[in-house]
């Protein structure tokens, strides 16, 4: 039987966190369909292993930045469901007091420097946070999550060049889910593997199975330790897939059902569960308990969000300036 070097508790924690994100996202979709969440939504169903595998290696005082598809990253880094759900509802009890919403989730207390709705813009910002760490002489690390689409922006090139040049403590994690909305990587990207672009900056680049949380955990552990030791940035490309549309209501004409079903066989939560059950780490009883606890927390977060007040109209001009 396969042996794992990761402690049992940690494996259960990974499973729990991924499941939490999955069930949270499913609930968000449900509440959104009822019209309780305004705007539009980008869910990360299918991609949970990336955020969880990476964030399991991070400390509370480490920083993350990510894209518009970031509910999972925020939860993985430690933001409470209540704060995220209330923010999605646009309520004053949300992590951004209702000013940001889904695409701007920020939670400084937990090192969440923010989602960013401009594709690629967070790449140089992450380098700036890493420069800050370096100049202050602490051993924090910054992780910057972005998608395959962002890897084709100018900000990607400028950010990675300087991060490498200045040996900044930042890890760049590309979540390649094959599509920038409808555009397949094969029609947008000159190379098969985005990780190979690391060579251009003289930094380590690694292709990671983004559907395997343990693979993500191991690869990011190395990259994060390297950054923490002051040896500079890395680029990880996690090959993954979103089981849902790019946004809620996406007709998904650009891909086949067969393709999706093939990827769903590799669902990161399902495969980890099978592995843990086989290893005797996870029992049906424990699994049931975990499900129940998560569901209760999610229901609590929805209730909290529903019952929270909206921001006062009089405060529309608050937070423009410090």
């Amino acid at each position: 039987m396969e042996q794992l070097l990761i402690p049992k508790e940690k494996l259960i924690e990974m499973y729990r966190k991924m499941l939490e994100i999955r069930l949270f996202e499913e609930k968000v979709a449900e509440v959104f369909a009822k019209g309780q969440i305004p705007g539009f939504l980008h869910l990360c169903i299918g991609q949970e292993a990336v955020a969880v595998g990476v964030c399991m290696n991070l400390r509370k005082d480490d920083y993350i930045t990510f894209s518009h598809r970031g509910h999972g990253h925020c939860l993985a880094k430690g933001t409470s469901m209540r704060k995220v759900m209330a923010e999605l509802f646009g309520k004053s009890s949300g992590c951004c007091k209702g000013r940001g919403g889904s695409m701007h989730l920020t939670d400084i207390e937990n090192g969440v420097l923010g989602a960013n709705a401009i594709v690629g813009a967070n790449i140089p910002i992450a380098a700036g946070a890493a420069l800050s760490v370096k100049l202050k002489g602490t051993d924090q690390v910054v992780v910057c999550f972005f998608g395959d689409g962002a890897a084709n922006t100018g900000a990607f090139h400028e950010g990675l060049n300087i991060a490498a040049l200045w040996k900044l403590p930042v890890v760049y994690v590309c979540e390649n889910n094959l599509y920038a909305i409808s555009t397949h990587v094969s029609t947008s990207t000159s190379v098969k593997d985005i990780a190979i672009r690391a060579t251009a900056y003289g930094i380590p680049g690694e292709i990671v199975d983004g559907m395997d949380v343990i693979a993500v955990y191991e690869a990011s552990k190395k990259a994060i330790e390297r950054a923490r030791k002051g040896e500079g940035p890395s680029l990880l490309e996690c090959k993954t897939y979103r089981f849902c549309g790019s946004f809620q209501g996406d007709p998904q004409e650009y891909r086949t059902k067969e393709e999706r079903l093939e990827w769903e066989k590799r669902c990161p939560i399902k495969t980890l569960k099978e592995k843990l059950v086989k290893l005797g780490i996870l029992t049906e009883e424990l699994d049931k308990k975990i499900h129940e606890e998560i569901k209760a927390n999610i229901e609590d977060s929805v209730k909290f969000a529903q019952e929270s007040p909206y921001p006062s109209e009089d405060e529309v001009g608050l937070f423009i300036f410090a």
Partner: protein
Amino acid sequence: MKEREITFAEALREALREEMRRDSSIFLLGEDIGVHGGDFGVTRGLIYEFGKERVRDTPISETAILGIAAGAAATGLRPIPEIMFADFLGVCMDQILNQISKLRYTSGGQMKFPLVIRTATGAGIRAGPQHSQSLEALFVHIPGLKVVMPSTPYDAKGLLKSSIRDDNPVLFFEHKLLYKLKGIVPEEEYLIPLGKADIKQEGEDLTIITYGLMVHKSIEASKEISKEGKSIEIVDLRTLSPLDKETIIKSVKKTGKVVIVHEAWKTCGLGAEIAAIIAEEAFDYLDAPIKRVGAFDTPIPYSPVLEDKAIPSKDDIIKAITEIL
């Protein structure tokens, strides 16, 4: 107070040096700002005192320069990025428009962005249309950003020090033709608050509202007019965002006649905003239509003859004054 004359560029350098000595969280970054001292020499010599960690030469990567400044500011430092020419702000517009000016708001006040973007603005050095523009109105339009443009060495130093100490992002425009201008600057420390205009010249018959290099052209123009026994008040805005409406309105009420002068294009320039404010808040005090003097709506031409024609001259200002005086 001990007074001496130094140039506009020297005044800016003194502000940077004093503030960097006072606060170790301040650092500079930009293209060729180290040994080269910046294309206009403002940061010359600072690298020898503060080292290359705090005076950081960067690649030609304006988006990264401002993105890095944003990330560093959000996590507790006070960066002063330099964008060599204001025209290049177009290259990194996203970081100003969508990041630096917005992330405090979208985070519900969790972050602040204490940074100053310094940049060289304006025409007059025959540098052509990609190195000569006056783009301040584009940025005054954006909430969450302060915009400053000094006209004298004294103001340059005091305003830059205040900008550095401000907890909000400030876009600091330095007119290229002013860098060598000499003026009195005290050796003792002083600050000039942001958001306060300055009456550069008191007068009774007409108000010129202006800023930057055009303050000097307006003063020259007013001298010609004063020969005819009329006195012109000159309001130097100094801070373009937030605008000092109080000083503007007060002067309008005093003189009843207004000419707004800026080097930027007339169409949708800052003059349009100022004229609208006056119309809304002091209409009854106006004795004549508001006049605006701005650049001809064209890319700034290379040929000296054309460049001089495109941007406002002393004669253009005199013409506008005499039309309503």
